[in-house]
């Protein structure tokens, strides 16, 4: 089904990487994506606004990195209304836990690069309740070699088991730091198959799940205020309004 299209919600495009937004869009489009979220780290202060280029969507986002779990909620609240996708870069178990317990967080990434797996059944339950998606970081499988890739695959396998058991929303991302790190959706799916993910699950992780995350953070067409919404009778007026947004 081509309707929701393929999304990658964790792409970085900082000035330091030497890439322009145009290059990233050109490559992502060539690879078959219909939208990417540019999630630059919060300390770079480079937030790219949401935009749409004839059918290709750029979704504004931020990747929050902090070592202090108690500060995380404050930072999330700061960005929640400014961007469409709030991504938390995990690490220690306390950060991961704070992230999955906060419904304002959309996606938790980078939590299994460490030697021990930072995800367990307690976090899985919390993530499922708060609908915080966890990301399978396939960039690790692409870039690592040898023992560390074995470790990453093992962690992904374990996490997949928890995801299935507790019905945690998940996303497959290439964690691109530049356009060289992007991979086509089909290739991402076959990398996910290496740790036992079925083709249907992989497609859901690339299409419907990221799409639902993006939609829930965007006000509906004709939104005025909490509980107040313009309802159009004909489709023309609705589409005009979309362009204004």
């Amino acid at each position: 089904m081509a309707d929701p299209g393929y999304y990658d919600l964790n792409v970085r495009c900082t000035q330091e990487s030497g890439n322009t937004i145009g290059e990233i869009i050109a490559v992502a489009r060539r690879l078959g994506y219909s939208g990417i979220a540019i999630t630059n780290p919060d300390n770079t202060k480079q937030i790219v606004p949401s935009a749409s280029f004839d059918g290709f969507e750029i979704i504004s986002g931020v990747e929050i990195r902090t070592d202090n779990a108690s500060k995380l909620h404050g930072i999330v609240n700061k960005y929640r209304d400014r961007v469409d996708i709030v991504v938390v870069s995990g690490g220690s178990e306390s950060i991961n836990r704070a992230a999955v317990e906060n419904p304002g967080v959309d996606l938790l990434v980078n939590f299994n690069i460490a030697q021990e797996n930072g995800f367990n059944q307690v976090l899985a339950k919390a993530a499922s309740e708060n609908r915080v998606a966890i990301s399978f970081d396939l960039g690790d499988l692409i870039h690592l070699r040898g023992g560390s890739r074995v470790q990453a695959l093992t962690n992904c396998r374990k996490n997949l088991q928890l995801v299935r058991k507790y019905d945690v929303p998940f996303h497959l991302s290439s964690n691109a730091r530049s356009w060289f790190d992007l991979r086509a959706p089909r290739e991402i799916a076959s990398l996910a198959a290496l740790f036992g993910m079925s083709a249907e699950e992989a497609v859901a992780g690339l299409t419907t799940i990221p799409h639902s995350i993006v939609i829930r953070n965007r006000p509906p067409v004709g939104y005025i205020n909490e509980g107040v919404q313009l309802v159009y009778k004909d489709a023309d007026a609705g589409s005009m309004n979309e362009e204004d947004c």
Partner: protein
Amino acid sequence: MKLLPPTLRARTRYLAIEVISQDPVRREDVIRELFSSAGSLLGDVGSSECALRLLAYEDSKGVVRCSHDRTGNVRAVLASITEVKGTKVIIHVLGVSGTVMGATKKYLAGVDVFNPKEQSHINE
């Protein structure tokens, strides 16, 4: 030598690929990288089961032959290639076909060499 009867021949698939990079890369280097990536990801046993081979490669476009039930693994192998002799690349599978002719005609003929630098201005 007598030809193998069709029922005994190895079944194959042909993957039409394009290499996206800033500078062109040579065929020999792509082959070397392909086998080293397969060896690292699947090991010797897995690589031999894939029966990988790079057929024609020209103008950043090529055809990879593999066993018919290993296309998924071969895609993963191609995805895990990050650079070819120091040049960063993306290997993009354009399509899979049962014959070389099919792969070439359907997916490679008429496809321009993709260069992100040239394409980027359209989106800005």
